[in-house]
C-alpha cells in the first residue's frame, strides 16, 4: 500500500499513456508561458474592447486555408512602409511606399490608411497607387488642419471615403466597363478590360508635402482588408482567435488545477478525519457528504453563478463545493483500514496527538491516490467551467475556451460556416482533458493494484 515517489516514477516511465499525457501537459504549459511572454497582460484585458481590434478583419478564416485550395482567398494584410524623403526647393516631401504582391483570386474587402503626424502649418497628404500594368491612380489629397504650434494629428483614410470614389471617376474612360456601382477597391484592383482581379505588384504611395518645418511621421500603416487572417482567424468582433485560444490555455489549467487540488485537499482532510474518528462523527460527516453528493451539480452551479456572481474565482469555488465528495468517500474508507494498522496504533499508544497521527501517519499513505484523483478531477472541472461559460454564465472578462464558444454560438457561427471559431476551442478542451485523464489513468494503474492486469 505504500509507495515512494521514486518507485511510482519508475513504474510511470513504462506507461505509454502516462508519458504521452505528460508530453501533452508540457506542451500546454509551454503554450501558457508563450501566452504570458508574447501577449502583454494589457492586450489581454482589451479582449472585450472592440476599439482595440479595429485593424483586424471581421470573421476571417485562418490564412493557411489558402494552402488547401486552388482559389486563393485574399489575406488580411497590414503593410509597413519604406520611407523616403527629399527637399524640392523649399518644399519638404516625405514618401511612404507600401509594396504588395497581390496574387489572390479575390478583391480585397477594403483598405484603410492609418497615420499620425506631428507638424506645424498645414501639410498636404496625397495617396496614390501604381498598378502592375504601370498605370498610376491618384486616390486622394487632403490638407491636414492648420496649426501654429507643433501638434500631433492622428487620422485614417478609408476606401469608402466619397472623395476616393469621386476621384476614381476621373479614370472612367480607361475602363471598358461601367463601374458606377463598384466600391473603390474593386475599381483599383480590377483589369481595365473586364471586371476581374488584376494580379501583380501594387505600390501604394502616401506623400506628405510641407512648406514649413519638417513633419515627423509617428505611425503610417496601410491595411488591406481580406477574408483570411493569421493562424487561427478572427471572430465576428474582429478579435484574433489565436490570442483568445492561447490565453485560454493558462486559464483552463488554472481553473482545472485549482479546483482539483482544492477538492482533493478538502476531501482528503474531511474523509480521513471522519474515518479516523469513526462512530457518530463518521456517521454524521458521511451523511452530510451524501447530501452534497446527491445534489444535481449543473442546475445548482447555474443558480450559484446567477445569484452570487460570475467571477472566475467564485466559479472555481462553486465547482470545488461539488467535487470534493468523491475523494472524501474513498479516503475515508482508506483511513478506516490504515487506522487499524499496527504502526498507527503504536503511535496512538505513545500518546501522539490526533492531528499529528492524521497528517504524519495517515496522509502520506493516501498521497499516491490523491495525486491520481487530482489528475482525474481536472478535466471535469475544465468541462464544468466551459459548460457554464457556454451558457453565458462564465466570467465575461476572460477569454476562456467556453467563453469563445459562447460568443460563437451567440453569433450563430455554425450556420455561417465559421468552423475555425467552433473547432479549436472544443479540441483544446478535449486535448487538455485527455492529457490529465492519461496521467490519471497511468497513476491509477500504479496505485490501484486491482487494475493491474
Amino acid at each position, binding site marked *: 500500500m505504500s509507495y515512494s515517489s521514486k518507485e511510482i516514477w519508475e513504474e510511470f516511465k513504462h506507461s505509454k499513456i502516462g508519458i504521452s499525457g505528460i508530453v501533452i501537459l508540457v506542451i500546454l504549459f509551454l503554450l501558457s508561458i508563450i501566452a504570458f511572454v508574447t501577449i502583454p497582460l494589457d492586450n489581454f484585458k482589451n479582449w472585450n474592447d472592440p476599439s482595440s481590434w479595429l485593424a483586424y478583419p471581421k470573421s476571417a478564416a485562418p490564412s493557411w486555408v489558402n494552402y488547401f485550395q486552388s482559389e486563393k482567398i485574399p489575406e488580411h494584410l497590414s503593410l509597413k512602409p519604406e520611407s523616403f524623403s527629399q527637399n524640392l526647393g523649399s518644399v519638404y516631401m516625405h514618401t511612404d511606399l507600401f509594396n504588395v504582391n497581390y496574387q489572390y483570386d479575390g478583391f480585397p474587402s477594403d483598405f484603410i490608411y492609418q497615420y499620425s503626424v506631428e507638424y506645424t502649418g498645414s501639410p498636404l497628404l496625397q495617396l496614390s497607387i501604381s498598378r502592375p500594368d504601370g498605370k498610376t491612380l491618384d486616390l486622394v489629397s487632403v490638407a491636414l488642419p492648420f496649426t501654429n504650434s507643433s501638434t500631433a494629428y492622428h487620422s485614417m483614410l478609408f476606401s469608402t471615403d466619397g472623395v476616393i470614389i469621386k476621384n476614381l471617376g476621373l479614370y472612367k474612360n480607361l475602363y471598358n466597363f461601367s463601374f458606377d456601382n463598384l466600391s473603390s477597391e474593386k475599381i483599383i484592383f480590377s483589369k481595365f478590360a473586364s471586371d476581374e482581379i488584376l494580379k501583380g505588384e501594387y505600390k501604394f504611395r502616401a506623400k506628405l508635402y510641407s512648406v514649413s518645418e519638417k513633419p515627423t511621421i509617428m505611425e503610417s500603416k496601410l491595411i488591406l482588408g481580406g477574408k483570411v487572417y493569421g493562424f487561427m482567424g478572427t471572430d465576428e468582433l474582429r478579435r484574433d482567435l489565436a490570442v483568445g485560444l492561447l490565453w485560454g490555455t493558462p486559464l483552463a489549467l488554472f481553473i482545472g488545477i485549482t479546483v482539483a487540488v482544492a477538492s482533493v485537499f478538502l476531501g482528503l482532510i474531511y474523509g480521513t478525519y471522519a474515518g479516523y474518528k469513526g462512530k457518530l462523527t463518521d456517521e454524521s460527516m458521511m*451523511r452530510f457528504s*451524501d*447530501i452534497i453528493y*446527491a*445534489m*444535481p*451539480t*449543473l*442546475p*445548482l452551479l*447555474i*443558480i*450559484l453563478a*446567477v*445569484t*452570487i456572481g460570475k467571477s472566475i474565482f467564485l466559479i472555481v469555488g462553486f465547482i470545488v463545493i461539488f467535487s470534493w465528495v468523491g475523494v472524501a468517500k474513498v479516503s475515508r474508507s482508506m483511513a478506516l483500514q490504515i487506522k487499524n494498522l499496527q504502526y498507527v496504533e503504536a503511535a496512538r499508544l505513545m500518546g501522539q496527538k490526533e492531528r499529528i497521527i492524521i497528517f504524519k501517519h495517515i496522509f502520506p499513505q493516501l498521497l499516491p491516490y490523491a495525486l491520481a484523483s487530482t489528475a482525474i478531477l481536472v*478535466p471535469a472541472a475544465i*468541462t464544468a467551467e*466551459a*459548460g457554464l461559460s*457556454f*451558457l*453565458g*454564465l462564465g466570467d465575461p472578462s476572460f477569454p476562456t475556451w467556453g467563453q469563445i*464558444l459562447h460568443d*460563437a*454560438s451567440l453569433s450563430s457561427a*455554425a*450556420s455561417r*460556416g465559421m*468552423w475555425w471559431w*467552433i*473547432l479549436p*476551442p*472544443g479540441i483544446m*478542451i*478535449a*486535448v487538455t*482533458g*485527455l492529457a490529465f*485523464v*492519461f496521467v490519471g*489513468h497511468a497513476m491509477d494503474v500504479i496505485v490501484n493494484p486491482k487494475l493491474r*492486469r
Partner: protein
Amino acid sequence: MGFKKFLAKRAITMFGVLMATLLITIALVGTNMDAILKKSVLAEIQQQVTNDKPLMATFKTSEDLQAYIEKQYHQRILALGLDQPWYTPQRIGLAMYKILTLDFGHANFLTSDSGSSEVKDIMLEKMPRTILLFTTATAIISVIGIFLGAIAASKVGSIIDKMASGFAIISSSFPVWWVGVLLIFVFAFVYPVFPAIATPEVPPTDPGYLLSLLYHMTLPLITLVLLGFGSWAYIVRNFLVGVLQEDFVTAKRAAGIDEKKILYSHALKNAAPPIVTVLALSLSGSLGGSVITEAVFDWPGMGKLYYDAINVFDLPVIIGETYVLTAFFLVSIFIADVLYAYFDPRIRRE
C-alpha cells in the same frame, strides 16, 4: 440491518437532500424573489386602479391617487406576508410547504405552449419530451454498450478491446454540447440532413407532431449516443473481465460449455447488478446535464426551460425546475441504491 431498514434510511437521506437543495435554492434567490414579488404586487394594484374608471374619478389630485395606491399596496404586502423578510421561519416554511405540495405558483414571463403561465403546467408539458429524449438515448447507449463491452471483454488485449477503451476515454473528454454544436454544423448546414433546431415547426395539436418531434430528435439523440456508448462499453467490459476470472467461469470452461454462452448468459448475468446500477446513475447524470444539451439543440424540454428561465430570471420556474430536477436525480439514485443492495446483500450490512 434488514433490507427494509436500509430502504428507510436511504429514503430519509434522499428526502433530506431534497429539502437541503430546496432550502439552498430559496436562500440563494430569496432576496431577488422578494423584490420581484413586491414589484409585481405594485404593478398589479396600479393596473387595477387605473382600469377602475369610477374609482379614478374620486381622486382630485395625483397625490390622492398615489396615497390610495400606497395604502392598498401596504395592505396587500401585509396580507401576503411580504412585510417580513424571506428568511423568517414562517415564510420559508410556507414556501417549502407550497413546493412540496407541487404548488409552484405562476411564472413571471414564460408560458406553456397552450398559454398557461402556471409553472406546474409548463413543466408538465416539457417533461415528457425530456424523458423521451434521455430514456431513448440511455436505452440505445446501454444496448450498444453491453454488446461492445461483451465483445471487448471476451478478447482482452485485442484490437477491438483497445479501440473500444481508447474511444471511451477520448469520447468522454469532449463536452457533449460542443459535439452537439459540431454535429449541427455538419449535418444541418454543410450537409443539410437534419434540422438545426430541435423544436418542431408544427403546433403540438397537429397529428403529425409526434413524427416531426421524432425527426427533430435525431441529431440530439445521435450526439448523446455517440458520446455515451464508449464509456458505457468500458464499464461493462471492466465488470465482465472481473467476472470472467472467477472460479465458476473456469469450471464452466472446463466443462466444455460454449464460450459465447458463458459470456452472454453466465458472465453477463453475474455482472448485471452493478451494470443496472450504473445505468440508473448515468440516466440521472444525463438529466442534470440536460440543461446544456437541450439549450444547444433547442429541444423543448425541461433543460431548455431551465435555460430560458435563467435568461429571463423567472424565479418561480427556476425554483420549480430545481426541485423537479433534484427529485428526478434523487429518485434514480435511490433506485440505483435499492437495486444494488437488492443484488448485493453485503452493502446492506455495512
